């Protein structure tokens, strides 16, 4: 029990911070309630998927700088397809496109033996270009039911559908993987590639799979962008740096092998709610940038200091 608590201390701390921030929001704006939560969850949607994907590749010991570009490709694919065909097959095609892009990223990393950061930096441009080739200018359309599926509450008045989608999708993808041999291999490869190889892990295939999972999450991210806006935009949004920040805030160690998906996703909500609070308080937007940067650094500093202390016994 205490073991589990110690292992998940960081995630628990983040959860507590999120609750405190939610309470603070309620204090600042007493009318904050169901709709507020709902728009918070919707805003978190693309960030959560980008972060989940990034977390998986960071755990395997890599990094994917092309997440935002892949999301743009998926968003424009979704918007162009849904103009022409039924929503459900279009969704599957988009997810397949995302998965394919991720697998290609991974395969290039493994085959060329060029470091991940370089390959995905190059692929950032490639996917950005591909998005522009698919849709030269913002446009396309999404099926109405797709837009409705992320809007509004689910069953009870206060549980946003968007939140449910984040929870279901990440759980449906990650929990089976985490439980399987693949999940172990992902952690093993990120922790010590050489030892993993010698323990019989197919390191190359594991990496490719991890990047594929990242691509799949980017597929969901692109779909959620299309569903949010109703169109497809070929220009990558601000999801790259935000996802790296959320991953690190969420307790995944850059370099691999440690952390999970829950922490980073909580971190996404924390970062979103901070923005909401700053808007509610009518803080000067320039100062907002300073505050966001400071909070990011301060939280990580606190966390690092805490782990250093506990590591020192």
């Amino acid at each position, binding site marked *: 029990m205490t073991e589990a608590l110690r292992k998940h201390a960081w995630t628990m701390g983040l959860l507590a911070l999120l609750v405190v921030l939610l309470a603070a929001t309620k204090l600042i704006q007493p009318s904050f309630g169901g709709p507020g939560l709902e728009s918070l969850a919707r*805003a978190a949607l693309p960030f959560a998927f980008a972060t989940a994907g990034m977390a998986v590749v960071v755990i395997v010991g890599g990094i994917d700088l092309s997440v935002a570009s892949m999301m743009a490709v998926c968003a424009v694919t979704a918007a162009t397809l849904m103009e022409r065909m039924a929503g459900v097959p279009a969704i599957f095609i988009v997810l397949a496109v995302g998965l394919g892009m991720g697998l290609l990223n991974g395969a290039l990393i493994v085959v060329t033996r060029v470091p991940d950061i370089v390959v995905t930096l190059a692929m950032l441009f490639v996917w950005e270009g591909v998005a522009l080739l698919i*849709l*030269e200018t*913002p446009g396309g359309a999404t099926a109405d039911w797709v837009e409705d599926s992320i809007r509004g509450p689910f069953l009870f008045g206060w549980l946003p559908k968007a939140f449910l989608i984040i929870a279901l999708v990440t759980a449906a993808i990650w929990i089976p993987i985490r439980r399987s041999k693949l999940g172990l291999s992902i952690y093993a490869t990120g922790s010590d590639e050489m030892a993993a190889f010698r323990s019989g892990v197919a390191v190359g295939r594991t990496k490719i799979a991890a990047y594929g999972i990242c691509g799949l999450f980017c597929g969901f991210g692109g779909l959620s962008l299309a569903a949010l*806006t109703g169109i497809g935009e070929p220009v990558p949004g601000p999801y790259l740096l935000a996802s790296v920040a959320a991953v690190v805030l969420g307790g995944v160690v850059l370099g691999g092998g440690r952390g999970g998906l829950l922490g980073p996703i909580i971190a996404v909500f924390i970062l979103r709610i901070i923005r909401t609070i700053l*808007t509610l308080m009518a803080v000067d*937007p320039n100062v907002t940038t300073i505050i966001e940067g400071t909070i990011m650094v301060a939280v990580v500093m606190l966390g690092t200091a805490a782990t250093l202390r506990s590591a020192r016994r």
Partner: protein
Amino acid sequence: AGGHKSYTIGVSNTVQGNGWREQMICAMRAQALVEGDVANLIVAHRNTDSAGQLEDINNLIEAGVDAIVLNPSNPDALNSALDAAMAQDIVVVAVDAGVTAEGAYILSNNQEEYAYLGAKWLFEQLGGSGDVVYMRGIAGVSADTDRDNGFKRALAEFSGINVVHEVFTGWQQDQGKQQMFDFLATGIPFDGVWTSGIDNVIVDAFVESGAPLVPIVGADNAGFVQYLTTVDGLEGAAVTNPGSVGGAGIALAVDILNGEAPDSTTVLVDPVLWENKTADGRATIEGAQNPNLDPEWPVSVTVPGWTDYSMEEIIACEGPGDS
């Protein structure tokens, strides 16, 4: 506006760190300050995409604003949030570019006209035939697409005009300058340059490389307007594209809140072209100049008939609730 009411107005903008947008925000602040009825201005101003703007608008609704003035990142993408706002009787005014949400007011610079006007002037200067360089903004962004439509319309009217280089500057000074150096170096000759607002570095590129100047069309940025009168041998035109349209948006929002809504929900602010080839044109430019202004700021700091603030007030860039 009679009896003092106290409105809270929300502002949403998705490009930060660009002189034009900074002027727009300052114009909004200044106008809100001079409007007696605005008690508070909440500004959401950052670099983000349409999804991020949706988030900001929802946050503004959550903050209980009476009106939202936004520079939309895309005409179609924001409808869900804008509909939600209008369902709560929040007034929505889009400035700079339009939105398709039913019931939203639009007070926009006519981007298609902006490009058409400048391109037409340029093509006329060349006598209807010649080679031009076409320096666009950011690929895949609405404003760039609108301008491209205007440019193409003018191009269709002049069959003798040929585009030898088309390139995206990303609305970045350094990129534009470097690209112009590259064009000059290739030796493929051209007779004129149309720019989407990255203008004075283009002039610099000609001067620094010693290449003979060709007619150049830019925007009414302080730096470029100054060049139009000071650089020897430069023939050029500045097309107005006032960032102060933001101030006009605030004025419109207050009018609507006070029950003085205009008949049409769409108001287009048409651009004006200032060229330095005629005495008249030069006089206009001399009058508009302001050497102390941030060179990225448009020199047309007011929209006559809409904005009420003074030069000092927009430069102070303070809104209600500040200080």
